[in-house]
């Protein structure tokens, strides 16, 4: 089997130049999807029978939580690849995915809390899902803090990659135990499980929003990885050339 593509993918230079071609498209796509989904969801999707208009927060809450979780697995996978194949790029991806995921997790919690007020009557409910999300935030913060605690970039990368992997092993356990804990403490008077089937008119904009969030995630991740690449590869020839080109262009414009 030909593994060339795999190693080429690990080259920061290749990544930088390829993504610079993709970025504009990705940006436009993200913007279109998010605007469409948001307008559709906020204005055109039918009102929920029970929850009224407050259910419209779902169009932000669900994609954010989905990506927060997916982002953690991506981060852990990138860390594992970095540890196994010693690929510098995947460590950079991991490093950039951590704050991104943490912000998304926070957003999911925040929108969830706001949604909870009109629906459940309080901003915070110790619901299994909410609690798991909070723990996910802690896991993200742990990885982030460990990353920056070491003086050596390399050690920080590897240590936080290991932590991310340990977290991945633990996520299902944590989720299951929290779920179990919740059923223990809440005799099933209220059920927070979502309606089994959503009306297609409601679901379609949600799908658009989820797609939009995925694109957004890719966009934001690529952008911060590119910065990281420039920063870490500053001594290589291609970055020097790139920067001096930019500098010359600017001088040319000024004169």
């Amino acid at each position, binding site marked *: 089997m030909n593994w060339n593509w795999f190693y080429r993918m690990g080259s920061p230079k290749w990544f930088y130049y390829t993504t610079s071609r993709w970025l504009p498209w990705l940006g436009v796509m993200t913007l279109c999807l998010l605007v469409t989904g948001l307008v559709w969801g906020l204005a055109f999707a039918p009102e929920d029978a029970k929850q009224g208009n407050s259910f419209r927060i779902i169009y932000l809450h669900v994609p954010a939580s989905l990506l927060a979780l997916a982002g953690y697995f991506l981060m852990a996978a990138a860390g594992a690849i970095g540890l196994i194949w010693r690929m510098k790029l995947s460590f950079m991806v991991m490093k950039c995915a951590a704050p991104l995921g943490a912000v998304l997790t926070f957003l999911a919690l925040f929108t969830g809390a706001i949604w909870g007020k009109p629906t459940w009557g309080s901003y915070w409910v110790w619901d299994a899902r909410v609690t798991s999300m909070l723990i996910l935030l802690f896991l993200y913060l742990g990885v982030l803090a460990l990353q920056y605690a070491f003086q*050596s*970039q*390399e050690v920080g990368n590897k240590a936080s990659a290991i932590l991310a992997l340990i977290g991945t092993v633990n996520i299902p356990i944590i989720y299951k135990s929290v779920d179990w804990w919740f059923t223990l403490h809440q005799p099933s008077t209220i059920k927070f499980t979502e309606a089994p089937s959503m009306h297609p008119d409601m679901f379609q904009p949600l799908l658009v929003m989820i797609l939009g969030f995925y694109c957004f995630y890719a966009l934001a991740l690529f952008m911060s990885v590119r910065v990281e690449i420039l920063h*870490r590869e500053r*001594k290589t020839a291609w970055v020097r050339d790139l920067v001096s080109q930019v500098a010359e262009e600017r001088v040319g414009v000024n004169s």
Partner: protein
Amino acid sequence: MTVKKSLLSVKNLCFRRDDTDILRAICLDINEGEVLQIEGVNGSGKTTLLRLLTSALSPSEGSIHFCGKPLTDCRFDYLSSILFLGHQSAVKMGLTAEENLAWMSGLMEHSHSIACALEAFDLKGYSDIPCHRLSAGQQRRVALARLMLSNVKIWYLDEPFAALDTQGCTLVEQCMQRHINGGGAVVLSTHQSVALESLRRYSLPALNQHELYR
């Protein structure tokens, strides 16, 4: 003079940390019955080199062969035939000198008795005192008394003369002499000049000075 048997051969060893070269293209041989002194200014990577040689760190490039075999294939054999003494002497403050030696040589096989070793290093009366009550030099002596107890092939000593008086230094030199006479090898990093026969020197170049200061 007979040809000395090579114990360890190092080829083109490089070590990088965060894309900065710490060590570049190190080639050296360690032979039986020989003392290799590693020299270099502060920050030239002496300790790092010793850590690479003791396989505590893995090199970014290059290879280390022990008795002709690559280190990765004979890690266990190699590790059981070396001794490393670092800046920190690994002396447990809560334990007495005697207990410390027993613990440390428990990692290896016995040759002399512990009392003998302590006597040789002038620590006879202190053997049952917790080490935190000993002076820095005495603690160092406890660590070095390990040398008397070991019968491994290669010694790696990182700044063995630090905190020792002249008498202590002579003792260590005697130890080393006995060791190489018995067919062992010593690798040490120090700034002091060592009066030993069959001493070779290896100087580490100072790398990236301007980068360090930037």
